[in-house]
């Protein structure tokens, strides 16, 4: 770590860089004053490390800070996500147990529930069967060897993969969650035969039963490994070249960061890196304003990410998916839907109005962008209704209101035979309804009542929809973050180191083996301690929490509850069982206390706390009317009203604004509906109440 003096003061800065699809958002924190600067640069898909370092330099320039002042660099990336979604990962190979070459190909042997049996096409697997090799050797479900590993076959497979130019190799053997011996030995043999290969074993990636899901997680890990590995290396080089000598940490899907050594070994853990950072940022701004129960709606151009935070902690799931694939690693429970500002509205031949999931994206974008878009989008509807001022950014980009109106009239209103304004409102009603559906999934379907939560709309388009969504959900309070468009980059600045260690350990009520559970937890805790060492986490900053997943006997789906404390005894086991019954009741409307319970998987979550910044506070408000820069007509269902447009940056702490009003800032526009009142919190968030 290095420090430098600027203006005579000793500065420590932290850099957060969130690389999105179109833009790279950068935040710079002055760790001493809590002041935060933001910058935005274009993402450079061909070599994302360039956009990364451009952003870093821009950010430091904005903050007036020297590269040497940086003590930590945190990064959210979509490199792994895109590689998986677009099927553009490495040529990967798999070595598996004799008889199980087609586990990936078969999958769970289902046509997905919502699909049509005559139309559905099975998605292409990330590894083709000609790169999958079988080797003899077998363990029982208890981990005991029933057939020794055929080492010659492993060597043969490694040589064949080497000859085929395959340098990313996964190893997944039956029942290896119970004992990693065969997989470790096989990995060593592969490295001997094929030293350039990057190797990943399933007992490292996901030591949990169900061979398809475990194989898929391991394959996806090696699938993204060569590129992520190289990418991390490039980032490190770029940082050194830019005289930034601070440690680089990457955001994982679970909402914590990890160092480059960890990411190189488990790159698939960055699959939801970007959205996870947004959730962390939401938790932070919420806590700063005194709110711990939050529902976040992050609305961008093509999609919306919905997540929930209870008691300041994001919900985490082990039943996540990335594109077509299950990914059973702990990840922030985010529901993504194809609804955003660029979502296209269409009327079908049968006369049905639909919005999304097709999106006009950034190019051509909405009709009002003057880039050749002809199909009306959600943004066009907002513009036509006066929800948006007719300009973007700081006024440098003028929007074509007439183009929006024309598209909505000719393509929606006329075919449906309804009034133009009703058509525009209809587009928004449908897209809001999609979002409400997704919010219900993370709240009501998880046993939470959304009315008990504060709604946090963010992303460039979020605060335009927050008011309507809050009303549909009967939510009384919204929190609009200080910079809604760069909340993910802020989340990076405030995230902690995190790692999870899980193992299957099947236990049946009546025969709970306290000693065995203690042994498994002990070994997982040891894994956690070793990880703390590797990440150089000081003793005082180490925290671990234990978790168990349980089900009723004969059930096939587990619920995870936190273990009370860090020891295994009769009392803690009884408490875990009690918590399971209670959670089952909450989630599924009934508990079955007359039915034996099984403990399936034990997990240790390790957190290395990083120093947390304190946000600087806004100066007190003067007369908010001085922030009014224009007025315009807003067309509501009840009639047309004139509303002031405020420049949000000019509002001080305690300022109060009554709807209808529009608040503009560089990265987002907030719409206040009549009856809604906003107050500027001293930490910069808007608290909107109704």
């Amino acid at each position, binding site marked *: 770590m290095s420090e430098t003096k600027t203006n005579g003061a000793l500065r420590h800065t932290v850099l957060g860089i969130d690389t999105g699809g179109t833009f790279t958002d950068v935040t710079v924190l002055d760790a001493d004053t809590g002041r935060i600067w933001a910058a935005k640069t274009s993402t450079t898909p061909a070599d994302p490390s360039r956009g990364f370092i451009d952003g870093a330099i821009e950010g430091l320039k904005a903050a007036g800070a020297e590269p040497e002042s940086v003590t930590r660099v945190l990064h959210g990336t979509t490199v792994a996500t895109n590689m998986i979604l677009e099927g553009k990962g490495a040529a990967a190979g798999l070595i598996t147990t004799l008889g199980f070459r087609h586990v990936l190909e*078969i999958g769970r042997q289902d046509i997905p529930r919502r*699909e049509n049996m005559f139309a559905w096409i099975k998605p292409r697997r990330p590894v083709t*069967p000609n790169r999958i090799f079988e080797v003899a050797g077998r363990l029982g479900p208890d981990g005991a060897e029933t057939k020794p590993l055929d080492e010659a076959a492993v060597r043969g497979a490694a040589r064949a993969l080497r000859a085929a130019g395959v340098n990313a190799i996964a190893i997944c053997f*039956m029942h290896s969650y119970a004992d990693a011996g065969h997989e470790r030995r096989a990995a060593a043999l592969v490295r001997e035969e094929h030293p350039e290969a990057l190797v990943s074993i399933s007992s490292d990636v996901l030591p949990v039963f169900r061979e398809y899901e475990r194989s898929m997680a391991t394959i996806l890990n090696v699938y993204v490994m060569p590129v992520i590995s190289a990418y991390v290396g490039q980032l490190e080089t770029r940082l050194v070249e830019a005289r930034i000598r601070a440690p680089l940490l990457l955001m994982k899907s679970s909402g914590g960061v990890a160092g480059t050594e960890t990411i190189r070994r488990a790159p698939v853990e960055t699959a939801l890196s970007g959205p996870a950072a947004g959730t962390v940022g939401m938790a932070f701004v919420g806590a700063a304003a005194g709110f711990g129960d939050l529902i976040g709606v992050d609305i961008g151009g093509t999609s919306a990410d919905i997540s929930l935070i209870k008691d300041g902690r994001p919900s985490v799931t082990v039943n996540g998916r990335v594109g077509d694939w299950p990914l059973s690693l702990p990840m922030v429970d985010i529901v993504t839907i194809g609804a955003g500002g660029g979502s296209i509205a269409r*009327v079908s031949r049968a006369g049905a109005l639909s919005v999304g999931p097709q999106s006009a994206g950034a190019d051509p974008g909405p009709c009002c962008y003057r880039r050749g878009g002809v199909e009306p989008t959600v943004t066009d509807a907002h513009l036509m209704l006066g929800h948006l001022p007719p300009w973007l950014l700081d006024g440098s980009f003028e929007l074509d209101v007439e183009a929006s109106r024309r598209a909505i009239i000719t393509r929606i209103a006329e075919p449906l035979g309804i009034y133009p304004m009703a058509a525009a409102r*209809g587009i928004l009603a449908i897209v809001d309804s999609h979002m409400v559906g997704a919010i219900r999934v993370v709240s009501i379907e998880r046993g939470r009542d959304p009315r008990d939560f504060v709604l946090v709309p963010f992303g460039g388009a979020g605060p335009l929809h927050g008011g309507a969504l809050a009303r549909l959900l009967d939510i009384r309070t919204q929190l609009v973050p200080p910079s809604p468009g760069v909340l993910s980059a802020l989340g990076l600045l405030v995230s902690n180191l995190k790692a999870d260690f899980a193992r299957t350990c099947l236990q049946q009520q009546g025969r709970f083996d306290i000693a065995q559970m203690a042994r498994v937890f002990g070994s997982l805790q040891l894994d956690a301690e070793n990880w703390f060492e590797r990440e150089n986490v000081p003793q005082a900053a180490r925290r671990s929490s234990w978790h168990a997943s349980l089900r009723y006997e004969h059930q096939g789906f587990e619920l995870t509850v936190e273990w009370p404390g860090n020891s295994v005894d009769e009392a803690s086991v009884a408490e875990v069982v009690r918590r399971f019954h209670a959670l089952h009741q909450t989630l*599924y409307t*009934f508990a*079955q206390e007359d039915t034996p319970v099984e403990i399936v998987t034990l997990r240790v979550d390790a957190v290395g706390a990083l120093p947390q910044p304190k946000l600087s506070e806004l100066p007190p408000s003067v007369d908010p009317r001085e922030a009014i820069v224009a007025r315009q007509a807003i067309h509501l269902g009840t009639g047309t009203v004139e509303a002031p447009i405020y420049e949000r940056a000019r509002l001080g702490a305690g300022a109060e604004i009554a709807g209808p009003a529009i608040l503009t800032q560089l990265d987002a526009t907030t719409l206040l509906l009549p009856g809604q009142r906003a107050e500027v919190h001293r930490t910069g968030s808007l608290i909107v109440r109704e």
Partner: protein
Amino acid sequence: MNDVGHVAAEVTCDPVTLEIVRGALRAAQGEMEALIERTAMSPFIREKKDFFAALFDGKGKLVVGSNLPAFGDIVAPITEFYPLASMQAGDLYWYNDCYQSKGAVSHTPDQVFVAPVFAEGELVAFAHSWAHFNDVGGLRPGSLSPDCVDIFQEGIMVPPVRLMRDGVFNEETLRIFYRNSRFPEMIKGDTRAAVAAVRLGERRLGELFERFGKGRMVDALRQLIERSEKTMRERLRALVNPGEYRFTDMIDSDGQGNGPIRMRYKLTVDADRIVLDCSDSDDQTPGPVNFLMAPQVPSTVFGLYLLGGDPEHLLNDGAVRVIDEVILRPGSILQPRFPAPLGLRGVTLMRNVAACLGLINVATGGQAPAAHAAYVIWYLRGLKADGSLFLMSDGIGVGYGARPTADGIDAVYLVAQENYPAEFLDSVYPVRLLRYAINPDTGGPGRWRGGCGIVREVEVLAPEAVVSVRIDGVENPPWGVAGGKSGGPGRVVLNPGRADERLIPPISDGTVVKHGDVIRLETGGGGGWGHPFDRESERVLEDVLGGFVSREAALLDYGVVLDSEGRAVDDAATRERRRRRPPAKMFHRKEYAELLT
């Protein structure tokens, strides 16, 4: 639509609200299904996902259904015992009685639960779920066996009964039901899960009626049904010219020595009516492959085909109305007389789907998929080392038919239903899974290849156990179309490669196996579409390298010659070979034919 009620005439639902209602109904259905999936206990439900949820309007017409062509008129059987006027909020009805319900449910393990939904004191909708319970009594564990000779041997029959009034269970009824199962704990958990799901659906529908108003919701449900009907009718008319079309498909056997059993279909399309006549099908059988088919079922197949992957329309009563009349003959395989056994109706149900596709192919010159194999179920029953009874009921995927624009799906069971992971079987039952793989060369050769079946090889670790199995399409494999060839058949081998190797009859029960025996199940593939010589040689090579097609079949069926190592196509030799192109006809089942009869 006067029968929808007087409110419909007063309020209409605008297109925006309609889209919102449609999304909300789908979401409610999804939420109900998630609840069952996560809480049920029968392996059939929780790992194999053999369950669905649906929503009906106040007259019991389906509004949002499943993508499964297996069900009839769900609500009507209840109203025979409990008139609509007698229903109250807080009621919940239950049945599994196939004959009493006229095939609304078609084998006894499937339990149907239905709750009425009220708005402003009026019955406006129904929420429904069904799920396949593990064992409801009967001749053998699992309740289904090819040995059954009447339905009384297939478990307890529950006619429509009121399971709840004012939200309180009729515990006496349930006590009788649980007492009749070999696994009462499981079906107790299943009942709770299925009932909780229906209650959830009832609540969600109630919320929607409250939010949008009764009149608007009633109209929305009406519009959703009419929209599907209008679109499906238009699509069918555009696809099929007036005329008379015939197709015959068949199943191998009833498991008791009778077969093959033919299903003879005739579709008559004239200016104002579309009629499907199945009455010429063979008589019902002594064995349990009889399918008490509700007339809605073949219409649903047509609806599914016409719907394709289109997310705009719902598969509902509107799709069912696409065929004006379905004629069935009492005493036939598709309309058996009480008390004929029905347990293995799955093979006939899946063959009905193929027969409907056959009709569409005849009528359109091959614009529909080729035939699929019928999913395979087998049971292993016995005593564990500790003396307790175990029942392993394992479903295995098959190959689906190739399509005019794509290969058939490899190795799937059916919509939504999943496999048991090998690691699950190994840890719960006294078995060791030795092999779980693609069954090569079972996909029917074609321009588009039929999907391949599966090989599942299981070593028995119990001292002794009994095998029951059901594989159809061994003698009469799924047909190919438009020049595509039929799929490869399935079979069951005991101790393959050993001195005591022998075949187990494909539909049979009672085969005794011992510790160390190996049971190898091979399932069949789907038919191909188009002439196999038109398939790109690169795809054939990829299939060979991936283990889907053997090198020999590449040569003989596809005319593709590989190099000596079998890793590349010999282009010159392939061109030469493909010059001698075998003549093809419209259909193929072991041999080409213009029509299957």
